[in-house]
Structures are given as C-alpha cells and as structure tokens.
C-alpha cells in the first residue's frame, strides 16, 4: 500500500499544496502552505512537482508510519525529527523503509514543518487544489485536520530527485524575532502621521488567537484618520489590516477574499514564509521597502528555484 498512516497529528496537521487559485470571484480563499518556500523545497527534495500536496505540521507533536519504501523530506520550522529513533535533518532528501516511523518534535524556532513524501499526498482535489480549508470544511482529507489512524495515500513515485540538499541561500531564515519587509498598503493614506510612526516603528507580539486566516498582533495601537472602514475590496495573504482597535492583523493563506478594514501594508512575497513561521508569542516588526527591492527578491528566488526543479526533473516537473 503506497501510503503513510498518521499515529499522532499533534496540535494541528493538515494537507496543503500551493493553494487554490481561480475561484476568488466566488469568495474561495487561496489556502495552501503558510510557508510556500518550505513546501516547494520539501517537494523538490522528495522528487515531487513543486505543487504536490504535503503535510503542514503545526508545533510538532507529530508521528506517522510509512506503509511503503519512500523518499521524503522535511522543511520549514527547525524541529527535531527522528526516523525509527535516529535523528533526521531538515532540508535534505531522506529515505524511509516500509514500517518505519517518523516523529517530529516541537520546533526550536519557527512554527510549521512540512513533510513531503515521494509521489505526493493523493487526496482528491477540490476546485483544482488539494489544500485543506478548515473553516470551509473542504479540500485535504475530508476538509478537516488530520487525526490518529488517518491513511494518506501517495501518488505514483516519480523518477526525480537529483537534489539531495538545498543551497543555504534558498533556506528562509527562521527566528522568533522576525522583520517582515512590506510595501505600503493600498490604504496607507488612512494612517495618521502618528499612526505611520507607530506602525513602522513598533514591535508587535503574535496573539495566541492567531490562525491560518490571520495573525493577530498585540502592541501599540495604530492611529487612523477617518476610521478603519473602507468600501470592501480585495484582501490577500500578507495584507496588514488595521481594524478600529488599531491592533494590526496580518492576513494568512486562509484569509477572506475581501475585507472592509484599512490595509496599511503588504508583506512582500519572499517574506511570506517568515509570516508562516510566526507562532503565538513571536515578535515581529515591519520594515518598509520599495517595489524594486520586492521584485528583485521575488524574481531571484523564482529563478533559483526554477533552476533547481529543472535539474531535478529533466522531463518537465513544475516550477
């Protein structure tokens, strides 16, 4: 049986891929891995396409059994991991024999760990994606978080896998004190001069009420002019909303498709993995950058990742 069986899911483990695109006009959130870089790199190492479905493991406490010999890889949070008791490194191509058990512990820093298994998780796509949307109860395995004894089937093994480790420059930094680079948001003009200073100058703590929909930040209130309400427009992962209480909310992958609060800033795409690694209690500040810096960083990262995938799949894997 080409499958893995969940022994312990930990606080939250879900099936995620690159996300669900093309249904925004119906109000369908993107979903997908909160750390998309780790998802792609784990897939690369496991010999999968970039968009194959993985397990997103939140705060460790996870174990599973391989029902088949398979390559696999871990990426994301710095979590201690063991395969049948022996230590396993993240960001490397690994191999498990049928019957062996993988265990992933509480992250030393970071919040989410990705387990990619050769062939990818073969759950049925919903609206073009295998990502779980917990609040909507769709995608992934029956639209829900993974449980004990769940069996996840694997797609056919592919012959990729020329890459056995990841160049250091592609591995996102992972720390409990994070600086997220951000562009001015679409309604930045609604912040008062004082609110501007507060927002770009303050350190915020991630609240324990945060989830995949949004990271609620606690810290100095951001002062607005003319209130927090706007005529609802497009909301997106990385958008930093300022509701009426002045406490910023950074939207995550499960975020609503439209929102009616001021958006002060937009976290740049290459720093979204850092957002995905912020757990409760982590501290974060925002550094304002220009579009050129964001674009250059994005293009460079996509180019380097694309090159690695080309190397791994000579016969046309995904970017």
């Amino acid at each position, binding site marked *: 049986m080409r499958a893995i069986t969940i022994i312990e899911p930990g606080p939250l483990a879900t099936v995620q891929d690159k996300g669900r695109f093309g249904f925004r006009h119906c109000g369908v959130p993107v979903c997908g891995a909160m750390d998309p870089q780790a998802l792609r790199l784990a897939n690369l190492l496991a010999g999968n396409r970039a968009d194959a479905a993985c397990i997103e493991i939140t705060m460790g406490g996870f174990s599973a059994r391989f029902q088949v010999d398979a390559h696999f890889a871990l990426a994301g949070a710095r979590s201690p991991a063991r395969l049948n008791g022996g230590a396993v490194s993240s960001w490397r191509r690994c191999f498990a024999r049928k019957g062996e058990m993988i265990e992933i512990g509480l992250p030393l820093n970071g919040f989410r760990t990705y387990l990619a298994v050769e062939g990818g998780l073969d759950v049925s796509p919903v609206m073009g994606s295998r990502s779980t949307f917990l609040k909507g109860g769709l995608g992934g395995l029956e639209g829900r978080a993974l449980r004990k004894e769940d069996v996840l089937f694997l797609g056919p093994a592919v012959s990729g896998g020329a890459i056995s480790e990841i160049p250091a420059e592609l591995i996102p930094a992972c720390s409990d004190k994070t600086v997220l680079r951000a562009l001015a948001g679409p309604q930045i003009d609604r912040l008062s001069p004082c609110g501007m200073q507060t927002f770009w100058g303050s350190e915020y703590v991630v609240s324990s009420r945060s989830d995949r929909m949004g990271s609620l930040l606690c810290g100095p209130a951001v002062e607005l002019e003319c209130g927090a309400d706007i005529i609802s427009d*497009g909301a997106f992962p990385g958008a930093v909303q300022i509701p009426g209480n002045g406490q910023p909310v950074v939207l995550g992958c499960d975020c609503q498709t439209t929102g009616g609060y001021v958006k002060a800033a937009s976290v740049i795409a290459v720093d979204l993995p850092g957002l995905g690694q912020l757990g409760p209690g982590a501290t974060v500040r925002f550094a304002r950058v220009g579009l050129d810096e964001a674009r250059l960083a994005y293009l460079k990262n996509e180019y380097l990742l694309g090159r690695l995938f080309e190397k791994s799949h000579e016969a046309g894997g995904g970017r």
Partner: protein
Amino acid sequence: MRIETDFGSPRNRGANSEPQVLLCGDTGVSVEFAKIIDPDINRRVRRLYKRLKTGAHPGIIDLGPAYCSLFIRYDPFICSLEKLLCIIEDNLEAPGGAVEDTPRIIEVPVCYGGEFGPDTGEVAGFHSLGAPQVAALHAAPLYRVYMIGFILGFPYLGGLDERLKTPRKKSPGPIVAPGSVGVADRQSGIYPVASPAGWWIIGRTPLKVFDLQRKRPFLFEAGDAVRFRQITREEFESYNDH
C-alpha cells in the same frame, strides 16, 4: 492611469474619475474605479473582470471583482507589472457593451432576532428603533448582489435602508453560525459557513449559501437581486433546503 505606490491617493473620488491601480504587495494589484458603491461603477468592475477572465492572460492567476475595484493576483515571473498595466489599460479602453445584471431575483427567508439575531438589540438601540422595526426595515428593499467575497460565496448586498446604516464592529466578533444575516454600513450579507463576523447579526436563513454537494455550490453571483422574507422560528425549523 496612476500607479499608487505611496501616500496621497485622493479620497472620495467620484464616478467620473480615471481608474487607479493600487499595489497590493508585489504579486497583486487593485484596479479602483472610484470609492463609491454604485451599480454603474460595479458594472464597469465586472466588465473588466469578464474581459480579463476571457482573455486568459498567462501570469494572471486570480481575479476578484469587488464593489468598485478589481483585485488581480499575478505572477511577476511570468507577467511583469508593466505588462499587466498594459493589459489592464487595453481592456479598459476596449470598445464593447456594458455588463448586464443577471435577471434573477432570489428570495431569502430569514428568522429575525432572538438567538438567530444576537446583535438585533444593539442595532435597534443604535438607531432608537424596536427589534420588529429592524426586521421590517431590513426585509423591505430589493437588494443587489454587488460582489461575492469574504468566504465561500458570501454575498455583499447593496440597498440597505439608510435608517439601518450601522458602522462595523470595532474588531471581528465571535464565530457566527452559517446562514447568519448581518448588516454593516449600508450593506447586508449572509455568512455561508461558521466564521468570525465583523458585521451585526440580526437574523438567520435556513438556505445554504454554499453547498459543495449541490450542482451550483454557490447560491449567489454578482448581479443577482435578493429579497428577504420574514419567517417564524417554526418555519425556520421545518425549512427544507433542496
């Protein structure tokens, strides 16, 4: 066309101004036609949406028409911002007729107040009305679906009576049940699934706004008309949503 990358986007732009492109990070833009809720502006938004959707431009990966703006998610590795702006401009200027509203009028039964409408008292208090008046005023107008957003088919309805205009909650409130009918500003909406709500909940419908098992999973689409009908608790309990 202006690209807004910094301060100073002019406020309260009217129906006749030029569309403005706002950056939404480095992989998204919002084409804002005006800052008003207006059927004609909304039709212009949906016209651009339909043109871009039909055009199937590589690198444009998601489109979200809103009240008076169109959100575009793109992959700058495939389609540069400059190229995207050309595509937008070309499609704004292209000749062709306006987008028409759908001819549908969808009737939505609602049980108002009580445990189904936990915020009715606050809305009534805000406007010095009684709870029955809130229900009557809410059920009277013919609403227009301006957009689908928030979560899984949530309809944003324009046409709320001025006397019920209520500012949004200061921060999103507790989780509300599927079918919850809310008001905020001059809008009304229906929560498709259990979710945190920033709007004031005044009733609940037994209709399923979203049902993946249904042939049409999403009950509403932009351009539909909606009329609410007051029902009793008994009618709610015995309602069968086929």
